[in-house]
């Protein structure tokens, strides 16, 4: 197993590092499409930490721990911000249900959790020791 840990300040300009690091670590284990999905999920998760847990504060820390093994990439993202409303977890699996013709009612946000869930094989959240812990797993599909 190969493990890497990255800690960033909660600034939007640092977010691309999180995806780039995943691609560097897991580049040999996943297809380009799967790496894009991993990047998408990690970016959305870290964006949520900044926007919701830290309410946009830029001087807080987010830790991203990557663990690549033969069959999976496991990523844990931890912040020390505000806890998540458990009701929000429903958004992970909720259908994005809106009328595309009703322009005034189109959602301008709120996609993040749904995207994270769609892009990863397993997504878990827990609140522990005053911290938010997001665990994201992508399984390696053997090339045939």
């Amino acid at each position: 197993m190969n493990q890497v840990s990255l800690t960033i300040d909660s600034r939007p300009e640092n977010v691309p590092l999180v995806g780039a690091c995943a691609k560097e670590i897991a580049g040999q284990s996943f297809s380009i499409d799967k790496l894009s999905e991993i990047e998408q999920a990690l970016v959305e998760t870290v964006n949520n930490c900044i926007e919701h847990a830290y309410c946009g504060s830029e001087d807080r820390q987010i830790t991203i721990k990557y663990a690549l093994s033969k069959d999976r990439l496991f990523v844990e993202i931890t912040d020390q911000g505000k806890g998540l409303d458990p009701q929000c977890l429903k958004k992970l699996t909720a259908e994005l249900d809106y009328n595309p013709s009703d322009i005034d009612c189109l959602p301008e946000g709120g996609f993040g959790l749904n995207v994270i869930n769609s892009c990863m094989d397993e997504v878990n959240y827990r609140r522990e020791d005053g911290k938010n812990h997001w665990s994201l797993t992508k399984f390696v599909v053997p090339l045939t």
Partner: protein
Amino acid sequence: MQIQTKAVNGVLTLSLDEKRLDSKLAVGFKDKVGELIASGNRLIVFNLSAVDFIDSSGIGCLVTCLKLMGPKGKITIWGLKPPVESMFKLTRMDRVFTLCSTEEQALQAVNS
């Protein structure tokens, strides 16, 4: 933020010369396009062929632009790379925006 604009026959073509349309860029992008909409543009073609990555903030700011234009507004988008197109599909925004392969198709679609 690098945006090239060109207005031809009432259509504003807007080329985003950035690799990422994400939370870092979203507010500035919304402000810039918002100014162009406030000055009367209602038909916009976005060229996103330089963009490698879009997050939900980027998708959200395109929705904001559409709303700012009101009922007479129309946006078509072309040049989506696979990860960017996937994001439109994941958020189901491929049903809201007309997505085209080429600028020619996008110009035709925005005028139709």
